[in-house]
Structures are given as structure tokens and as C-alpha cells.
């Protein structure tokens, strides 16, 4: 039987998003402004990396070449990663990290709640599991975006700068290519336009509460879903993959 390459690509996109963002967020461990936030960020990272295992194990099974989640996470190079560019953006300050998280969470929750009804049973099961964690993450990131956006003059300015910086990286979440449209027509994934409608609704509501203004520009970066990445991803992989590259098959 021929491997389902569209499905494989889609699962890499999901798993690489959670893997790269999970790794990024884990970089905060021990550096957050207060202990509670440090723990919260580490826990969010843990959830994302746990979800990565479900997505990438499934991707490996679909590919049928004997690669599991570890092999896919640690033995691929930059051009084989399929995450969106947003998640590889550097952490910046605490407000930058939260804004990136909120923009991601709003998308991830919207797509997961629809994937829970996927025609593919295993995707539906993974999504039903992950959506509850995503809801919890979204609740927290939205709350903090409002508190910091509608906070002091300085926190407001930082959150507006963060929004301006990340906004051009949000369009990629909804830019459907032939892989997406083919999977949508098979009922495996939702129509990304529908996901966009929910994301717009959430983002508009929360940013209004946060007294932040959506930037005017319409330019949107893209390429990550097809394997064209910014320089940042290579630096992430250098650190994340070091051990398996230096000591292949090391385990403990």
C-alpha cells in the first residue's frame, strides 16, 4: 500500500508546531519573572511536547519506514521540518512569549476542536485529548494578554510591539495549500477558512479587551509549512538534537 503522503505531511505540521513551540517555551525554565509563571511555562511546554509524541508517532506509522517520534524529532534537518514560522520566532521578553502563545493557542484550540470530528479516527482521538489542554492554555494566555495589554503604560507598549512583530506570522496558519485542500475534501481536516473565522473572533475579542490594536499591514510571511525556514530553526535544532546527533541511539 502506498503511504498517504498528504496525511504524513499534515501530521508533521501538527507535531513540528508543538515540538518547536514546546522547545521554545521550555527555554524559559528558570528564567521567568516569577516562580508561578516559570512553572506555568514549563507545564505548557510539557503538554506541547507530550502532544508532539502523539502526532509524530502517528506520522511515523503513516510513513511506514520504521521512524518513531524520537527519530522524527531528533534525526531530521531544518528543511524536513514543517512548522509554521511563528513558533520558531525567538522568545523576546515575557510579553513577546505570551503574545506568541496567545496567537498560537487561539489557532490550535480552533483547529483541534474541529479535528476531534475528523474522518480519521486516530486524528480525532489525539485532537479530543489535546483540545482540553489547549483550552486551558488559551484561557491563561488570553488572560495575561489582557492583563498586560490593559496594564501599565510600559506593559501596554510592550504588548503592542509584540503584536506588531508577530502579526505578519499569523497568516500562515490559514494559508491552505494543495495538501490542506485535499485533506479537507476527504474530511480529514477542517476547512481552514472556518478555523480562521473562529480565530478572528477570539483574537478580536481578546485584543479589544487588552486595548491593543491590530496592525494595518497585510504582508504575511510563509514557507514553514513547506520546509522553508528562518535562520532561527537551525539554532533550535542545534541545541535540541545535540545529544542524539553526538551519541546516536543513546538512551537512559
Amino acid at each position, binding site marked *: 500500500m502506498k503511504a498517504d503522503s498528504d496525511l504524513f505531511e499534515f501530521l508533521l505540521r501538527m507535531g513540528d508546531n508543538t515540538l518547536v513551540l514546546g522547545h521554545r517555551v521550555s527555554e524559559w525554565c528558570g528564567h521567568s519573572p516569577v516562580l508561578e509563571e516559570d512553572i506555568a511555562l514549563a*507545564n505548557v511546554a510539557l*503538554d506541547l511536547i507530550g502532544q508532539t509524541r502523539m502526532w509524530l508517532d502517528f506520522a511515523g506509522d503513516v510513513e511506514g519506514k520504521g521512524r518513531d517520534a524520537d527519530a522524527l524529532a531528533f534525526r531530521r534537518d531544518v528543511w524536513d521540518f514543517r512548522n509554521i514560522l511563528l513558533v520558531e520566532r525567538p522568545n523576546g521578553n515575557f510579553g513577546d512569549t505570551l503574545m506568541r502563545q496567545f496567537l498560537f493557542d487561539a489557532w490550535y484550540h480552533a483547529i483541534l476542536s474541529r479535528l476531534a470530528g475528523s474522518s480519521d479516527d486516530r486524528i480525532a482521538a489525539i485532537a479530543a485529548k489535546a483540545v482540553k489542554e489547549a483550552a486551558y492554555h488559551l484561557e491563561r494566555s488570553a488572560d495575561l494578554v489582557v492583563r498586560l495589554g490593559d496594564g501599565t503604560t510600559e506593559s501596554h507598549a510592550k504588548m503592542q510591539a509584540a503584536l506588531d512583530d508577530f502579526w505578519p506570522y499569523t497568516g500562515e496558519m490559514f494559508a491552505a495549500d494543495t495538501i490542506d485542500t485535499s485533506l479537507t475534501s476527504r474530511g480529514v481536516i477542517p476547512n481552514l477558512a472556518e478555523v480562521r473565522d473562529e480565530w478572528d473572533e*477570539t483574537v478580536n475579542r481578546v485584543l479589544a479587551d487588552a486595548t491593543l490594536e491590530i496592525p494595518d499591514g497585510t504582508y504575511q510571511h510563509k514557507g514553514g509549512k513547506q520546509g522553508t525556514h528562518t535562520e532561527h530553526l537551525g539554532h533550535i535544532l542545534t541545541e535540541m538534537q545535540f545529544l542524539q546527533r553526538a551519541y546516536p541511539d543513546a538512551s537512559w
Partner: protein
Amino acid sequence: MMQKHKPSTEQIREWLDAVPDPEIPVISLVDLGVIRDIEWQGDRLRVTVTPTYSGCPATGIINLDIETALRDRGIRNIEIVKTLSPAWTTDWISEKGREKMLAYGVVPPQTGTACTSNSPAPEVKCPRCNSENTKLVSQFGSTPCKSSYCCKECLEPFDYFKCI
């Protein structure tokens, strides 16, 4: 000890009800609601387990503890399989487990309050003085399954089991 005849699945469930959850050791794996099925397939015992949180570091330990407990009872041929569906929620925690958790000082999740992105904050009572005058300190706590609260009456800091 050699296994002369196969113990019943009810018996095995009872044994697993004595295996503590690695993170809240006063409740058992059965109380936690992660044991989904126990079934003999010929001479092989298949135990179906569901994870709590996707990234819960205790998942591997839970599987190991199940295997160890059953081996101690003389069962050698064990298969542990994972199932994701239906997804675990805090509503799977048993009534007995909730009572033990509260006595231990961790406030159990309120049934039917599984989190949605716009759910109202639950009223969480202090496990020490029973006051409702408490506040959420952080949505995340000492382990992935708990959030941090503080009682404004007696000033006790305490954990509340997150609802998902």
C-alpha cells in the same frame, strides 16, 4: 510464586486498586480512572491504560508500577496497551479517590467542570478551614495536574486538581 490458574479480572482490578498514583500517592490508579480495561487473551493479560495529561511524566512510571504489581502476584505474561479514546477527563476520578485526595490536602476537581475556554472559575473551598474565600495564585502548580490556590481566611496555600 507460580500462577496455577488465572485470577479473575475483578481480582486484578482489586490488586491495581492498591497501586498508588505516583503524583498523589493517597489515591490508586483505579481511583484516578486511567485503567480502562483488563482482559485475558489466552494466557496473556492485557491491561488498557489511558494517559491523563499528554505530557505527564508519570505515564511511564504508571505502566511500570502496573507491571511490577502484577508480576508480584505471579502474572508473567502482561501486555500494557495505551488508548486515547475516550479521552481522560477529571470526571473519571472516583468518588473514593476524591475523598482521599481532599483528606490529603489536595482539593479534588469538581465533577462536570471540565475546562472550556470560557468556563467560569469554580468555587474552590480551602481543604483546611473549608472557607470559600480563596484565590487562584496560578493556573499551574507543583505537578502538571494541579493549580495553586491560597486561602484568604486561614492563609493556607494549597493545590487544586486542575479540571480538564
